[in-house]
Structure formats: C-alpha cells, structure tokens
C-alpha cells in the first residue's frame, strides 16, 4: 500500500476484516517496538537532519509511492485485491517540488581550502554558470525484492534479497531490528542489475523481515515496475551555481560552488553520499589552488535520492567541465588548450578540498580522446554540428575487503570474496587474479559470493571498488596460500624452501615439479585469508563527443563518442571495455531521453517505460575506447575503478558538444527536441 499523494497527513487506516487469501495488514502501529527506521550514513563533516526513512509511514507521507501499509496474502494478486479494500484517510498537504525553493535542509556540507578570496581578487576573469542534471531512475532489469524466513527455535532470520552485496543489507537489518549479527543470515543470489539502487536495505525489505518474524511464516515481496519507478531511490537531481576564477592567460586560480541537491522526503542510508562526492571532486583534474564549496541537500516531496551509477561523480564532471568550456569561450581559447594549461601532472596531488589523487596521466587521456573523436564543427542552415570534450576524476576504492582462499582436496582453488557481483564479472576477474597468482587454469578456480554466513566481512560492491579492494584481497590471500603451498612442496620434495622455483606448472626443484594438484592430493588442507584496506584511489579519463542538431526540428544526433579511461592496471581489458560501453549508454540516456518528472503536485508523471524511455541499442552511436594505465601505488594490483566511468564522462562531453554546436548556448540534459528548438528560436 503506497501513498497516492506527494504530501499528506495520514488519519485512520482501516483494514478489511477479511478478504480472499488475506493473511495480515501491517501498519506502522504493528511495527512499533519491533523495528526502527532505516539508519543514516553521513559523510565526513556533513550535518544531517534526524529524518530517517520509516519502514511504514507514521502520521505523514512525504512522497507518492511511500509505503503506508503492508498487505500480506497467499498470492500477490490476492494481496493487490485486498489492498484495494484498505481505506486510508489522507489529508493532503502542500507539496514542495523544487529543491531550490525548499526551505527545509536535510543535509549540509561546507568545505574548501587555499585562499579563495585572494584567488578571486587576483582574477582577470570570473566565469559564472548554473548547471543542472535531472533526476534519473536506475531501472535495473530485475526490480527489487526480498524473502524472509524466521526460525523461532534457533532465533535465526534468513533474508534472501536482490542486492549489491550482503554486508549492507545485514547492517541495515541489524540496525532496524536491533538484533545481533549472528542471528541474521543474508543471501544475495544472482542479481539482475542494480546500478547503485540496491546498495542498502530498502524500507520494504525491513517490513518483509518484521512480517516474517511476526507471522512466523516466510514472507516474499517482489515489486512491480510501477513500484520500482515510484519507490526505489533515484539518482542525480542536482544543480549548482559555479564560479571559476582565472588569469588572463587561462590559469585557473579558484573555484566556488553552491550545490543544491533534491534529496526527496527523507535521508535514506546513503542519500547524503553522492552530493558530498560531487563537492569533493569540484576541482576536477585541474591544478586549482583554492576552492570553496557548499552543499544544500534539500527536502522535497519526492522519493529520496541515492547512489546511481556515478553517484556524485557525473555531477562534478558536469559542473566543472561545463564551466571550463564557458571560460574557454570567454577567453577565446580552444577548450582543449585551456584544459591542457591547467591539468594536474604531479602525483600524489592533494586538492584544496582534501582528497589526494594517487596517480594519472591526464594529458595523455585528453590527447587520445581528441585524436579518437576527430573533432568537427559546422554551422549550416540545415545542420549544426559541434565537438565537446570533458575530463573526469573518479574516486574509487577505499575502506576494506577480504578474501578467503582454500586449496580444495581435488586441487581446485575456492575463493570466498566479500564483494559480490551483480553484472561486473567478478567470477572472471577474480579467477584471473587467483589463476595468475597460483599458476593454475581459470577453470581450476571456483568462487563463492553472497552468503553472509560463508563470506568474510567487507564493505560491499559499490563505487567501482571491487577489483581494487576485493581483487587486492584475493591477490594477497592467494600469495599467502602460495607461500603455504611452497612450505608443503618443500617438505614433499625434500628440499629447502629457498631452492624451490615457482612457475606455471607448479613448484620445481632439482628437475622435479610438483603441481598444486599434487600438494592437495598429499592431503594438506591449505587455506589463507587476507583483508585489504587502503585510501581512496582516483581513476580518471577524457571523453569527447561529436553531435549534430537539426535546427528545423531540434533533433539531436550523437555522431560518435571517444572514451579514454585510466583505471590503473587492468585485470581484464574486455570486461573493462564492456563496463565503459554500458556506462556510456546510461550516460547517453541521461543526455537524450531520461528524466524522472513530477507535476506541480509532486505526482510522478514518468512512472512507466512509455514515459521514461531508456536508450536501446539502435540509438547507440559508435564508441571508440582506449585505456591509459597509470598503476595505483595504493594496492598490489595497481588497479582503480572502471564501473562508472562511461556514465561520468559522457553527459559532460555531450553537453559541451551541444553547447559548441549551438554557438555557445548551454542547455542542461536531457536534450529533447523541445528544449533545443526553444534555444534555437
């Protein structure tokens, strides 16, 4: 049962006494004393309101689609029918739809460094711009869902869930139910996509868990597409006023920004994270000595926002790269040249906002992107075309991940990893890391993920961190295992350990070779564990796009895109490229067609794929990819993140290309025909 209103007070909730197949109707009254609202995670130095998302609405609803009551029945259709009989008294309240107009702040952050006033006082030119990215829907192919089952005798709650990992679902349940970790087992099976939207426990997931405990029987919830549109947290919905101070020669001196984030009705666990990431990346890849950034995370009567592929990074790239292009136009300098004059070239580099970039070769990325895209510009009566470039720096990695590695009796390697896949290809990359480290075949490596009772602890799969963190943990565990194996090999071959040589075939000494298989057969159950922790690593890249616009209709066509990414050392270039192409497609969708819209009453008006159109393969332009590999000094693999790159670089590059084609007139995505026509007339 979800609220039809964007903002209303809730009066009585009257459940039917009986209905076919009806088992129970739960409201916030039944949850009282049994479950707490979802937790809130606040980024470093952020202030947040104590307005967590309740599992079921208590007294008030703050967005259309907010869960009000849970109707449990023998089947979903019966539950839907019974839900129609539940009467809820709503007293509609005035909704707030525009974040800038909202007077209610849910989250606030301020940061900076360097002498910003001196920078602006010394500037020959200050360029100002306001830029915005729309609210977006993650739209995973598989919607959200969970099954909970409670074993009263063992006091064990088992929770199956479509999620990005087990850790954050478990943490959410521990908080919500106030139960010890040992009394909850979370299982995340194969997942049909998430893109950030299944990172933390959903309110509905919490309800499912409570319901299973209250009813003493298994409870299943699988949302339909409409519910996913209405109630799964959305992404972006961020705008900013940006000021860039430069010298007459185009040297960037300082950047100021006020970021307004449309956070929706409540702080979900990770709602505050993306705007903070945006703020921290507002120096982009430029050597700017001072920065002053403020974030106002406003409450609106919409579903809360949260991480969506890029999660703050596309916003930063968009704001910074748009203002840099505006500056180039005002200075009369080629935008590529203006970038080149300001790129960071020495590492590690600490930005005035406080993050330290570990490595990179920004100029090489830029040069390669420009070369690959083959810039064009024409201003004909029937066709306008233009080229845009955009650079990005992406924070990835950080926190910790673990891996357990074991040599099984049959000679196979079993890896239990704390980060689990939902489309990234962990099975391949992690097997590669292990196979390379142990000199075995890929097929000799088996992986296990997604069972909190079996995998070691970690942070989870998000922020393009799996290879850098989880992969490094696997690499370290494998190295330990190899040393263990060497000890056994030395014993079996009756040679000192230092006489052993290690090769693809196994351990050799004195002309004899002992493969791992033989060590396993010797009956030695060998295992090793490793936990890897590091600071953030910073991937980077340059994107370029050529677009054409038909002035008569406003129709935009993206002719081609060049994507050059530096994710450090690549473990699997094929998977890395796949990630880039997928990200480009989502970034392009954001540019061309995607926008979660609301009417003036806060009603979602794009809650189906008829109104919210995703790109199809037919709309994809040619994408030229290339990789630069600047190894990260912070992990044994030299790896960084690649999962979000395409979604970060693409919107900014396409927006700059559109502005270029329009003779400098900037427009915010999505670049609909209507919008472009308006600019052209």
């Amino acid at each position, binding site marked *: 049962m979800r609220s039809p209103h964007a903002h209303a007070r809730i009066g009585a909730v009257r459940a039917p006494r009986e209905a076919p197949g009806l088992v129970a109707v739960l409201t916030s009254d039944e949850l009282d004393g049994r479950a707490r609202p979802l937790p809130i995670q606040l980024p470093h130095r952020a202030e947040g309101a104590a307005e967590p998302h309740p599992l079921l609405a208590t007294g008030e609803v703050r967005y259309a689609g907010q869960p009000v009551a849970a109707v449990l029945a023998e089947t*979903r259709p*019966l539950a839907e029918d019974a839900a129609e009989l539940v009467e809820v008294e709503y007293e509609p309240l005035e909704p707030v739809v525009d974040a800038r107009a909202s007077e209610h702040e849910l989250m606030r952050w301020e940061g900076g460094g360097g002498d910003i006033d001196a920078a602006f006082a010394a500037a020959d030119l200050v360029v100002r711009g306001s830029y915005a990215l729309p609210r977006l829907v993650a739209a995973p192919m598989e919607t959200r869902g969970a099954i909970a089952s409670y074993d009263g005798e063992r006091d064990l709650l088992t929770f199956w869930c479509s999620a990005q990992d087990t850790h954050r679902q478990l943490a959410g349940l521990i908080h919500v139910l106030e139960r010890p970790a040992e009394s909850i087992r979370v299982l995340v099976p194969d997942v049909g996509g998430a893109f950030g939207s299944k990172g933390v426990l959903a309110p509905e997931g919490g309800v499912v868990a409570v319901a299973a405990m209250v009813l003493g029987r298994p409870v299943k919830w699988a949302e339909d597409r*409409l519910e996913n549109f209405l109630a799964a947290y959305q992404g972006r919905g961020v705008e900013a006023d940006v000021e860039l101070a430069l010298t007459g020669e185009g040297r960037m001196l300082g950047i100021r920004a006020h970021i307004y984030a449309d956070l929706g009705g409540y702080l979900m666990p990770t709602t505050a994270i993306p705007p903070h990431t945006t703020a921290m990346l507002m120096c982009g890849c430029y050597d700017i000595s001072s920065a002053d950034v403020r974030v106002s995370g406003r409450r609106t009567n919409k579903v809360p926002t949260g991480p969506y592929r890029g999660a703050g990074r596309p916003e930063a790239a968009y704001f910074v790269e748009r203002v840099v292009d505006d500056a180039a136009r005002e200075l009369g300098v080629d935008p590529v040249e203006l970038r080149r004059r300001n790129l960071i070239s020495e590492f590690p580099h600490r930005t005035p906002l406080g993050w330290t970039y570990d490595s990179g070769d920004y100029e090489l990325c830029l040069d390669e992107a420009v070369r690959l895209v083959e810039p064009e510009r024409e201003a004909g009566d029937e066709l306008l075309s233009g080229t845009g470039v955009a650079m990005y720096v992406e924070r990835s990695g950080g926190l910790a991940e673990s891996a357990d590695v074991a040599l099984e009796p049959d000679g196979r390697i079993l890896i239990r990893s704390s980060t689990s896949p939902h489309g990234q290809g962990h099975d391949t990359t992690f097997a590669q890391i292990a196979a390379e480290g142990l000199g075995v075949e890929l097929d000799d490596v088996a992986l296990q993920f997604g069972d909190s009772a079996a995998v070691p602890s970690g942070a989870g799969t998000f922020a393009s961190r799996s290879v850098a963190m989880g992969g490094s943990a696997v690499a370290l565990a494998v190295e330990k295992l190899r040393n263990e194996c060497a000890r056994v090999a030395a014993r079996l071959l009756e040679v000192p350990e230092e006489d052993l040589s290690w090769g693809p075939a196994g351990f050799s000494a004195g002309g004899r070779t002992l493969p791992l298989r033989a060590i396993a057969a010797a009956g030695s159950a060998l295992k090793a564990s490793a936990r890897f922790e590091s600071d953030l690593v910073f991937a980077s890249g340059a994107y370029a796009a050529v677009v054409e616009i038909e002035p008569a209709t406003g129709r935009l066509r993206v002719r081609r895109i060049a994507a050059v990414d530096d994710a450090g050392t690549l473990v699997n270039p094929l998977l890395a490229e796949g990630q880039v192409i997928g990200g480009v497609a989502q970034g392009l969708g954001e540019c061309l067609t995607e926008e979660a819209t609301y009417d003036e009453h806060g*009603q979602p*008006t794009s809650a189906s794929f008829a109104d919210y159109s995703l790109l199809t393969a037919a709309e994809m332009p040619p994408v030229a990819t290339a990789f630069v590999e600047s190894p990260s000094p912070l992990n044994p693999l030299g790896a960084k993140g690649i999962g979000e790159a395409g979604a970060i670089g693409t919107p900014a590059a396409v927006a700059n290309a559109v502005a270029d084609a329009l003779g400098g007139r900037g427009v915010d995505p999505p670049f609909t025909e209507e919008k472009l026509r308006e600019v052209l007339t």
Partner: protein
Amino acid sequence: MRLTNEFEVAAPVERTWPLLLDVPRVAGSLPGARLEPDPAGDSYRGTMKLKLGPVTTEYSGTARLQDVDEDERVASFYVQGREARGQGSAAATIVSRVSADDGHTRVLVETDLEVAGRQAQLGSGLMQDVAGALLAQFAKGLERELTGTPYEAPPAAREALDVGAVAAQAVGERALLVLAGMAAGVLLGRLLWGRR
C-alpha cells in the same frame, strides 16, 4: 495539469448555455457518469467509470457549480472524486466559456486537473488526448440532448466510458500504441500472477 479543449455544438448559444448549467443533465451527456443531487446542499454526488484497456477505474465523488457569469457566459465547475477501490483520487476545476458562432455554439473548456495515484503515474502522457476524446463524446451528447433525441449510449458504454474506444476515434496512433502496450502488460501480468 492544465488542459485546454474546444468543441462546437450545432445549436444556438441561447439553448446551449442553460443546458450547460443543468448539472445532472450535463452529466447524462457523458457516458459512464451518474449524478444525483446531494440532499445536503448545492452539490451533486455521483460516480464516473473509466475503462482504460482492461482496467476499469470507478471514481465516486461530488460535482458543484462553482461560479456563473451570466453576462460573459462563463461557468466554472468543481469536481472531485476518489477511486472506489484503490487509493487514487482526482479533482478538477473546469471553466467553460460559451460564445455564439454563426448559429452554433463554441465552448472553450479550460481544465485544471489534479490526479493522484496510478492514473496519474501511468497515464499522464495520455491525459491531454483522453480529455479531448472525452469532450468530443460529451459534445455529441449535448447536441443530442438539445435536438431532443436524448443520448442513448449502448449498454456497455452506459456502464463505463471506454477511454480506449473513445481515444481510438479521436487521438490516433500514439495513444493507441501506448494503450495497446498497457493492455498487453496488464494482461500478461494477470496471466503470470493470476493463477487463482
């Protein structure tokens, strides 16, 4: 959501205008709608059934003549209703301006519509088209009413206004495609879930 529609009735304005102010008779011109006076006062209670593909939504609520300007021939109605089953609701302020046009009557209808729930979330792209189709049907009903051949809707239509069928006559391919898609989706949903 603001909608503007215009229609013409083949009758002089002197006859059309009073009819437009007769709420129950007006409602009779709209298939799917039933109204009766509210004993409590100056408003009317009634129901309106809309059929969008296989999904029928019944709204029950009130209608009230809000403001009448006899000189300018402008009338405003306020209509509000809730889904009889389910959580959706709808409210509209409808302002009709009537003018004479060569023995005929032109009616300009400006609607400020507020729909909450499923119909708003799934049908917003269709709303303009559907409103146009509804008014076309309504205009026909008015004409019949005025020419003394009261509108006799076919039994099915008396039951509920089939927006799909109406829209098919008036709005063309885009809406039809979307409707067909929605219908297919709902049917598929029923098939997959509906083993009961």
